[in-house]
């Protein structure tokens, strides 16, 4: 079995990531079990799963943060990640966080543009510790976007935000996605969020992709949309939860 991360190796045409036989064990616990996944250019995937189902492990493997996975991982060279916590570097002002590690001549202008896109121009000179949760998460998105990634990995980036801020962030992510068209892999445990945002919703269970739903409704979507309502029950069932909230 071939092992290791193969960044930038030849990917199937039109794909930004291809994973085959991906296995990850922690001790004698198998978190990812011979998982296969391909991510197409520009597609928006939501990855659902109970806690401990290996969602974040898969994302970390794609982000190149896990050296101990077995299997084949081919990922485009241009990946950006936004984590659950914004993970801004506290001793660099917001704009310096966005330009960190960005070695292009017009880094400053690009950072300004990215901050404008996430509506954070006014806070560009602020210290990260003075930002609100939503502002910090927007700064984190700007830091990811400024690299013009082909694949944007989002690890539950909205789960720590309050409900109103989360709605704003959903709109923001959709807008940014429709402008820049990166492929997005959003790890979430929120079925509504997955249905509102993604083209394809995957359910991870026992280390494998146990279920896949395609969402065809036009955006902006509303959660009362009949397609979403029906998919909602399907996905809950796939997650092993009945709509009444009792485990099946």
């Amino acid at each position: 079995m071939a092992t290791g991360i193969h960044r930038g190796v030849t990917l199937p045409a039109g794909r930004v990531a291809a994973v085959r036989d991906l296995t990850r064990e922690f001790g004698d616990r198998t978190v990812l079990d011979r998982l296969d996944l391909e991510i197409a250019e520009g597609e928006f995937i939501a990855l659902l799963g109970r806690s401990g189902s290996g969602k974040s492990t898969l994302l970390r493997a794609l982000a190149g943060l896990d050296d101990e996975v077995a299997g084949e991982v081919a990922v485009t060279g241009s990946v950006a990640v936004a984590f659950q916590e914004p993970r801004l570097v506290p001793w660099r002002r917001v704009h310096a966080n966005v330009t960190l590690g960005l070695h292009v001549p017009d880094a400053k202008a690009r950072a300004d543009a990215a901050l404008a896109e996430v509506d954070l121009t006014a806070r560009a000179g602020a210290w990260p510790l003075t930002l609100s949760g939503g502002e910090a998460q927007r700064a984190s998105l700007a830091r990811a976007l400024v690299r013009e990634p082909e694949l944007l990995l989002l690890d539950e980036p909205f789960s720590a935000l309050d409900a109103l801020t989360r709605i704003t962030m959903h709109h923001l992510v959709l807008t940014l996605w429709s402008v820049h068209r990166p492929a997005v892999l959003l790890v979430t445990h929120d079925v509504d969020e997955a249905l509102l945002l993604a083209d394809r919703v995957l359910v991870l269970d026992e280390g494998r992709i146990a279920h896949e739903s395609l969402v065809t409704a036009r955006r902006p979507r509303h959660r009362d949309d009949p397609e979403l309502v029906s998919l909602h029950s399907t996905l809950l069932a796939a997650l092993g939860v009945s709509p009444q909230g009792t485990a099946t």
Partner: protein
Amino acid sequence: MSVLELGTPARTTSRPGPRPRPRRLPGNAWRRWISPLALVAVWQLASATGLLPERLLAAPSVIATTAVDLVRQGTLPTAVAVSLQRVLIGFAVGAVAGVGLALLAGLSRRGENAIDPIMQMLRALPFFGLIPLFILWFGIGEAPKILLVALAVSFPLYLNTYSGIRGVDGKLAEVARTIRLGRARLIRHIVLPGALPQTLVGLRQSLGVAWLALIVAEQVNANAGLGYLINDAREFLRTDVIVVGLLVYSALGLLTDALVRLIERRALAWRREFIAA
């Protein structure tokens, strides 16, 4: 009311809004000077009446005059310059050694295995106890004095910088990986700034012990500097000169402490605004 509450003053009023800051009225500031000034006055009186003989402690007025004289003659400035030079060189040597070793130990597993056990063992050594050995090894010139200061300075800086580096948030290191920050940039932009607050704690401690080490070192056969001035004065029962020397020591200690606080305010601005917010 429980037994515990009996001992504490009862607080029956609820306090709406933020707690009022304890304010010191400008008109009341002088009250804090009453007791120290009274002490000096009593001291002066005791000296004038002969209750406090000059061979034990000189009168405040005599000390003040002596201080002025010592400055005029150039004795004091020269002594301060010599002592300051010892501290500066010793501090520089100790800081380079302490921070350098902390970087080696903090940034690589091999460095840690090689350096940290030795440093942890040596820190238990009472370094003033090394003076006899230092005299045997380095004689009684400048070298043992500077090296004692350097040794005293290096440990707080090593220990704090090392633990500062090891305490840097691993999640930020992951961010660095995802944005392809190379190792050199990771160290420069994430690790070193992250360790800085702890290093500054070490700096403050080390400057404190630097002066202490100097005072001890200068008791050993110095022929110049503040310690020499004090020791020489003892031979001639000049308690006024001794007190002037001590006052200068404490002034220099306060001065360096203020310097570190200034550096902290500058370097840790990102934290200060958070605390103020």
